[in-house]
């Protein structure tokens, strides 16, 4: 993992002290709420329905056991004993007191973490494949490039006040577990005909009120030119992006308004001005950053086996192949039956930290599906890892199944939400599992958002639910056909809105149709393309 240098350390520490003074000024009345609000948001502090919410950045979803223990400590001592892992691979605390937040940030800084750029119209935390550096199918580990982007974008003066927030995702594999198609910029590591590694560059994707799949700007960008090209995209957006209408300010609208061809031409022209200058990535700096992400060593021991109840099923569903012999990728589901998706207690965080340290190399990942991953587990220790997870209530064998439901916090916490999402997910999870509908649903995605901002990623779910406010009541729109990974697609609305209870039954019915109708090896998308919407409509709405 990357470790802070003196520059990283000083900017984070100084920021904590600056925010401590700002909180003091607000509490004394020297700052009004209007003056304080943008300052707290720049430090990840939101005011939600019941309390302040602190969003902590987990750079490209990667942390170590030491950092996880501090996250657990914060949950235990400053919150209500739990944290919420988000679809942006970060963690949110729902109940911290404003007066405690400078102290929390100080403790985060001690383990090289912060809440900077987790809000506001700036470049947010870069996200990536949670299996990076471990996946068998990757061209190259994307994390060094994510780290380079982190360093380049942190406090970048030119890009601190963009027209709107800006999200970059990087994938190292064709499977695209980072959903690059729905990010402002999506980068995919690829090889060209000469065998060199570079980036396929996409831009203009996003979800929210106006979901769009990104357009491809370039088939191949030399790696050393990454910052010049990113700067070119950002500069075109910063100059031409619409600032007078929040709903039209994202880059996706600019790309659509200009047209993909014209936008690409502008970016390329800007890139030609910038390339080969100060923004070229020095090879030695790229090598220095890459050295923090060594490939894990092979383990010359056979994989562990166990006849413990539930082990075989968990092994089959939650453990993924690793590129290094003797190691395995362990997905830790944060989706127990009827649980709150993405929530983990302080004790569970401590347990994951212990297992990652004891039976792997200490590294942990957060996924956009709101699960955790031990990316470099020693396969010989899988039985011990399973046992540890079981004791912690973390052994649910449903990673990637229908009950692995993604949700935003929704109206139970979020001040922007129009409808609840977690209780719907809880009822749906119980319904799917209790009725046996969860079986054999690998890679069927269900995602729920409590408002059109789409933090629950419903647009890119095979089966999505969007909660809306209809004359004071919660109503849910059901969408089908969204895809998050390679070949990203936006789901289409199936029919009229549904009450919360109807929504649960409707999704369960759609899962039932898929299980009944799918052909051999078909994904939900394949089945939907073959049979169309009608069988689903009939199951949900009747004749």
């Amino acid at each position: 993992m990357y470790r802070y240098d003196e520059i990283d350390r000083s900017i984070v520490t100084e920021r904590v002290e600056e925010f401590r003074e700002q909180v003091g000024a607000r509490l004394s009345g020297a700052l009004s709420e209007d003056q304080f609000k943008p300052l707290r948001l720049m430090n990840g502090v939101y005011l939600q329905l019941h309390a302040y919410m602190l969003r902590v950045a987990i750079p490209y979803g990667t942390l170590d056991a030491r950092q996880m223990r501090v996250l657990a400590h914060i949950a235990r001592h400053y919150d209500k004993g739990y944290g919420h892992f988000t679809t942006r691979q970060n963690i949110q605390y729902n109940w911290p007191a404003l007066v405690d937040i400078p102290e929390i940030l100080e403790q985060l800084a001690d383990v090289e973490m912060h809440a900077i750029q987790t809000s506001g119209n700036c470049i947010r935390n870069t996200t990536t494949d949670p299996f990076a550096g471990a996946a068998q199918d990757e061209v190259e580990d994307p994390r060094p490039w994510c780290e380079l982007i982190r360093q380049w974008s942190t406090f970048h003066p030119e890009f601190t006040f963009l027209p709107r927030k800006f999200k970059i995702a990087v994938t190292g594999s064709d499977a695209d577990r980072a959903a690059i198609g729905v990010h402002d910029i999506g980068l995919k590591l690829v090889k060209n005909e000469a065998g060199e590694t570079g980036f396929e560059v996409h831009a203009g994707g996003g979800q929210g009120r106006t979901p769009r799949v990104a357009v491809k700007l370039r088939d191949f960008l030399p790696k050393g030119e990454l910052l010049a090209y990113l700067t070119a995209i950002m500069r075109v957006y910063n100059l031409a992006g619409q600032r007078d209408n929040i709903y039209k300010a994202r880059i996706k609208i600019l790309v659509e308004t200009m047209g993909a061809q014209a936008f690409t031409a502008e970016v390329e022209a800007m890139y030609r001005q910038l390339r080969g200058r100060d923004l070229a990535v020095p090879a030695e700096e790229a090598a220095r950053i890459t050295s923090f992400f060594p490939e894990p060593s092979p383990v010359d021991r056979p994989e562990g086996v166990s006849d413990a109840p539930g082990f075989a099923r968990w092994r089959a569903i939650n453990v993924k192949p690793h590129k290094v012999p003797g190691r395995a990728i362990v997905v830790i589901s944060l989706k127990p039956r009827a649980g709150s998706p993405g929530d983990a207690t302080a004790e569970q965080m401590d347990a994951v930290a212990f297992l990652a340290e004891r039976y792997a190399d200490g590294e942990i990942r957060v996924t956009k599906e709101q699960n955790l991953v031990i990316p470099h587990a020693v396969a010989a220790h899988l039985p011990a890892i399973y046992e540890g997870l079981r004791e912690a209530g973390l052994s649910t064998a449903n990673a990637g199944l229908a009950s692995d439901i993604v949700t935003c916090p929704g109206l139970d916490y979020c001040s922007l939400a129009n409808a609840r999402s977690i209780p719907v997910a809880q009822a749906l999870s119980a319904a799917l599992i209790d009725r046996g509908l969860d079986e054999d649903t690998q890679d069927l995605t269900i995602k729920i958002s409590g408002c059109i901002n789409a933090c629950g990623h419903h647009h890119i779910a095979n089966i999505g639910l969007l909660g809306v406010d209809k004359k004071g009541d919660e109503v849910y729109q059901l969408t089908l056909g969204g895809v998050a990974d390679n070949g990203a697609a936006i789901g289409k609305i199936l029919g009229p809105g549904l009450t919360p209870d109807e929504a649960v039954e409707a999704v369960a019915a759609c899962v039932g149709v898929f299980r009944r109708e799918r052909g051999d090896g078909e994904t939900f998308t394949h089945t939907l393309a073959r049979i169309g919407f009608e069988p689903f409509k009939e199951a949900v709405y009747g004749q």
Partner: protein
Amino acid sequence: MRAITANRLTDGHVVYRRADGIWTPSLIEAERFGDEKAAEPALNAALRDILTVVAPYLIELDGEQPGGRKHVREAIRLKGPTTGTSLLYAGER
């Protein structure tokens, strides 16, 4: 009827304004107003109370409970998250 609500500055918790200007977590203790106009002086006073609360505003009431178009949101603010409870919980008037 109407009442004034806000979030407490120090911890963000939900509070309601009593007739004596004190903020309380109890909606039952909150001062009631017949309409927006009647609430205006108290709301203006609440907006000046920047050392105690953040962003005060009026809510509608239906008897002792939050009412009107935002009744679900305000019921959740009053009673806490509904996670793990019946889907109809916050919607019940």
